[in-house]
């Protein structure tokens, strides 16, 4: 299988690798996938409570090159967007941008799930005072 140049670029130079403080009130964490399935993505967002703008995003991914690229791209895309704008990102946008082949579409689905899970976690925190630990959706 050959990879698109964009996948290779994200694999070689992944953007926004790292972790945010998952206990912080402003941080939402999404952890999706399972080790048994060969893909686990952790995507975190730091949201400005006033504006609902995602000011920072970080990821770590266990998975193939396409999974790494999908999550790396997802962090790039959510940064600077409001939470609602980020929710509008669809997996097929990622497929198109990275030219993923059909067998790798699940990587993009997982990235979309990760965005949703992170935002869901952040929203939950806004409703309660107690920080909620990151958990798989």
């Amino acid at each position: 299988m050959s990879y698109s140049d964009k996948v290779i670029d994200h694999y070689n130079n992944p953007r926004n690798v790292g972790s945010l403080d998952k206990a912080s009130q402003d941080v939402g964490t999404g952890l999706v996938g399972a080790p048994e399935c060969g893909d686990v993505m952790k995507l975190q967002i730091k949201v400005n409570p006033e504006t609902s703008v995602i000011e920072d995003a970080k990821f770590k991914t266990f998975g193939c090159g396409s999974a790494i690229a999908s999550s790396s791209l997802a962090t790039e895309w959510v940064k600077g967007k409001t939470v609602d704008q980020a929710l509008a990102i669809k997996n097929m946008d990622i497929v198109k941008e990275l030219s993923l082949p059909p067998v790798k579409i699940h990587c993009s689905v997982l990235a979309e799930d990760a965005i949703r899970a992170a935002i869901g976690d952040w929203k939950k925190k806004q409703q309660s005072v107690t920080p909620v630990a990151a958990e798989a959706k």
Partner: protein
Amino acid sequence: MSTDVKVPQAAAQQQSSDHRGIKLPIYMDNHATTPMDPRVLEEMLPYFMEKFGNAASRNHSFGWAAEEGVETARERIAKLIGATTKEVIFTSGATESDNLAIKGVAEMYREKGNHIITAVTEHKAVLDTGKRLEKYGYRVTYLPVQKDGLIDLDDLKRAIDDKTILVTIMAANNEIGVLQPIAEIGKLCHERGVIFHTDATQAIGKVPVDVTKQNIDLASISAHKMYGPKGVGALYVRRKNPRVQISAIIDGGGHERGMRSGTLNVPSIVGLGKACALAQEEMPQESCRLAGLRNRLRDRITSRLDEVYVNGSMDHRLPGNLNISFAYVEGESLLMGINDIAVSSGSACTSATLEPSYVLKALGTGDDLAHSSIRFGIGRFNTEAEVDYVADRVVETVERLRELSPLYEMAKEGINLKDVKWAGE
């Protein structure tokens, strides 16, 4: 004939770059296929143009020349495995040999019984042949393997019943290189009057295989796994003590004593013969050299990385094989990071089925570690400098991908990954 032979320079890809005097990319996937030894090619060449005859043409010199090439090859194969020339049947490769052996016995001995025993870690050429026979009313037992990849002989003993006609167990596994106790299996089969077939594709030419000493009745052989050409192989069929008969699966002109019709692929057969002769000559030194390189590779990886696991027995193993799982790193992403090295992964992402290696799963390796596995196949043309380069590249890539891995981070935080409720489960 020249014995001054150079290492082949032409890999599938153009050699693209140089690093520390090493030609890149490095081919270290010798269980998938091997590069042809130039001495094999040299031996084959006359049989394409000058000696082009049909080995079955009995009444002119063109046929005789071709037949002479074929018979020399037959002798060389027989010699390598302790057989006689009449016991060697040429085929298109090990998949055909496996099919011919298993289906041939199943049909021939149908009245005696309908039970076949094999193991879960066999090659698909054996497993899928068994599955097909099940559709036709045969009963197939798939023996489990132990954690080290070996079958339990007591399991085999218990599985044999009065309807058992065939036991088929591979000599060396293609993924983990584990060597099954062939001699013991052969002895047991002969005591119980059951025919014993072994898919010896990965073993022959690498480790000693002797059909007499090991009580083997049928053995599948492939040329391209031992520095010969692709598309040619052989099946050993025992002629006495006991005489084994098989039904043909390809009918036609009655070649190969009726067991495999079709005009012989003379140049390739000549190549297979030469490959066997070279393997026999060089095996004692070469197997030591390969085991040394393999252990060096293992040590250079395991001494610098934590949580790496060798899959399968190290004591009963092909000298050139190493199969390692790198926890918290997915296999395909690792392959992508070491893209100037040709190896294989048991990761689902590298297979068409999206299932991780069934061989590793059979050892009890979790799916997570099966996804993280890499198979290294060191061969005749690999050097120590290449092994060192591969070890360095693997270590640095695993380290980089672990920094990227949420699983590694969680494990370092003391979270037991088994306790996590994963969405995908």
